[in-house]
């Protein structure tokens, strides 16, 4: 099967999953007793029962569950995610405003992770069981064991106590593309990237060490090829296959991580938005962000599958 058909088949298969994602998003949030309206009612004595009913119908919060779901889905597919009840803003505009921040943060973390992890992993595998390997394995193990929010807090702490850097949190009025933002990006970026780097490094090392034991490596050396070619051409491509699979899972972790890290650093992204929405019971916003997350991860997994097929021709035959 050619690559194109493989991609098409995969694209088709994610449709039911995307559907499922929307159902779960909706179901999760609607298990909650209460919604913004009831919260407003609870805190605001001037709201009458009639007002409540009116707001309910205006925001479509009355009617049976499945009807609400269909209404919501229908709107979503046309790009309408509803309103933020407390501020009246369009949910979509909030998302558009916050999404780039999170993407930038995630991307930074990702790139940071890959750039550090792949060479380190290769080096460790080649020097297996020697000092460099043992040290890097220990460091990687620490990297995946450290809670990311604590790492962030510690980085802030170190910055404040030792380096006397007092402002690490971005002022809210700076737009994203302002060069100064780069400075504020570094700490949260490193925080997110560390766990990713640690995971990738471990997998890279294990994968490569396994491949190095295989017969085709001996065969390649028996052909008299220079060692660099054996490693970088023959072994690396086979080793990267596991890394690609991991990278897909990592997207989910990075997304989850950004929620917490954005709170630590007060980074104005979707993660922070989500927490605030939860605290204020903003159902539309919660659903929209969750839906986005689900869709994004499904697409990332798809991309990983495709990349895997590009790297390993055997897969295209499934």
């Amino acid at each position: 099967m050619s690559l194109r058909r493989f991609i098409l088949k995969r694209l088709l298969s994610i449709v039911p999953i995307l559907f499922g994602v929307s159902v779960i998003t909706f179901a999760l949030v609607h298990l909650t007793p209460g919604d913004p309206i009831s919260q407003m009612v609870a805190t605001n004595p001037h709201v009458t029962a009639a007002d409540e009913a009116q707001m309910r119908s205006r925001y479509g919060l009355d009617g049976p569950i499945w009807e609400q779901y269909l209404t919501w889905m229908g709107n979503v597919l046309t790009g309408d995610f509803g309103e933020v009840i407390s501020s009246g803003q369009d949910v979509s505009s909030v998302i558009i405003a916050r999404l780039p921040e999170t993407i930038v943060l995630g991307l930074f973390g990702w790139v940071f992770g890959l750039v550090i992890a792949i060479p380190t992993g290769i080096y460790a595998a080649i020097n297996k069981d020697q000092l460099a390997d043992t040290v890097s394995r220990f460091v990687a193990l620490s990297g995946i064991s450290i809670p990311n929010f604590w790492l962030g807090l510690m980085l802030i702490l170190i910055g404040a106590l030792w380096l006397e850097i007092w402002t690490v949190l971005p002022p809210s009025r700076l737009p994203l593309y302002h060069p100064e933002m780069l400075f504020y990006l570094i700490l949260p970026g490193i925080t997110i990237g560390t766990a990713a780097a640690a995971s990738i490094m471990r997998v890279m090392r294990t994968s490569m060490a396994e491949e190095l034991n295989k017969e085709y490596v001996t065969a390649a050396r028996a052909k008299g090829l220079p060692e660099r070619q054996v490693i970088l051409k023959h072994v690396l491509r086979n080793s990267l296959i596991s890394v690609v699979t991991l990278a897909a899972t990592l997207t989910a972790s990075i997304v989850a991580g950004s929620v917490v890290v954005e709170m630590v650093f007060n980074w104005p992204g979707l993660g922070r938005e989500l927490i605030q929405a939860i605290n204020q019971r903003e159902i539309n916003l919660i659903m929209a962000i969750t839906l986005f997350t689900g869709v994004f991860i499904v697409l990332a997994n798809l991309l990983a599958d495709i990349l895997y097929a590009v790297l390993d021709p055997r897969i295209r035959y499934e």
Partner: protein
Amino acid sequence: MSSKEHTERGRIRITGFDPDQVRQRDPLSDWTEESGGETEGRLERAWKRFKRNRSALIGLLVVGVLTLLAIFARPISVMGMTVQPFSIAPYDPTAIMYMNPDSSAGVYDSPSLSHPMGTDGDGRDLFSRVLYGGRYSISIGFIVVGLSATFGLVYGAISGYYGGWTDEILMRIVDTVYAFPGLILALIIVATLGGGYWQLVAAFAIPGWITYARLIRGEVLTIKENEYVMAAKALGARDRSVIFKHIVPNAMPPMIVYGTLNIGTVVIGVAALGFLGLGMPPGTAEWGTMLDQTRETLIQGPGGSIPWWATVFPGGAIFLFVMAMNMIGDGVNDALDAQETGIEGQGGG
């Protein structure tokens, strides 16, 4: 089509090489076929390897110590009876120091002899709180993993074994849930159910089983194709016994490895929710919740002194525990996974 010419033609037959003579005679020397090395069971071998792994043993030790500290931090009473009378923690985790006339401690005191980890923002002894806090994290970690692993095992085994439509549907469900990061699902569940101990358990157990299900299903599929399963069935073994005798023991190793790593992830997740204020009620001596309280202190700007101990110690406890769990997990992985490559693997043939 050989280019050789045989000087003698015809078949060759050897007579006189009699193996019975070898079998019936007394051994000529002490050497026996067993002297080369005993065959030991896989589990035995794995355990030996595990014991040799220093970092895994250290991890085991640390987890053991932390668990014991958590249990013996303060007395435990079940239904009125004191089950555990010891109290390693010098103070009650909820006792506010400056309310006690005997104590001279205040809010955010730095570490000292009477308060080895200092006091927190409400004047409570941090050391006691950190010791006690282990109870939440460690217990939730093990309970959640126990629940998710069990459910995931059954789910995955059924899906993998029966295959067909059952498998398709069950796995589609898994794929869908898989699209969400565990933490986010836990977040929303906790937002739905509210904070608290069992809510946290639910929040992590409900999404947590899917990886186990996938693992087991994968193993089941692989082993199903394996010839010895087909052989067993050909000999008439029943489905259930086939599953238990052959499939489960083989599928255990990756489950165990993932389980140990999973405990670490759950502990971090619980702490993360605590840090976000969505876990245990504020003021609880849970490691993550303790960090939530101190967050504002970090953003004071020059002039204020930052109580670093309030951030370092609770977080450090999480780090220590998770690191130890991961070391154990790695050790188990190495022990169960590694094939002994003897001479056979070295091309000694």
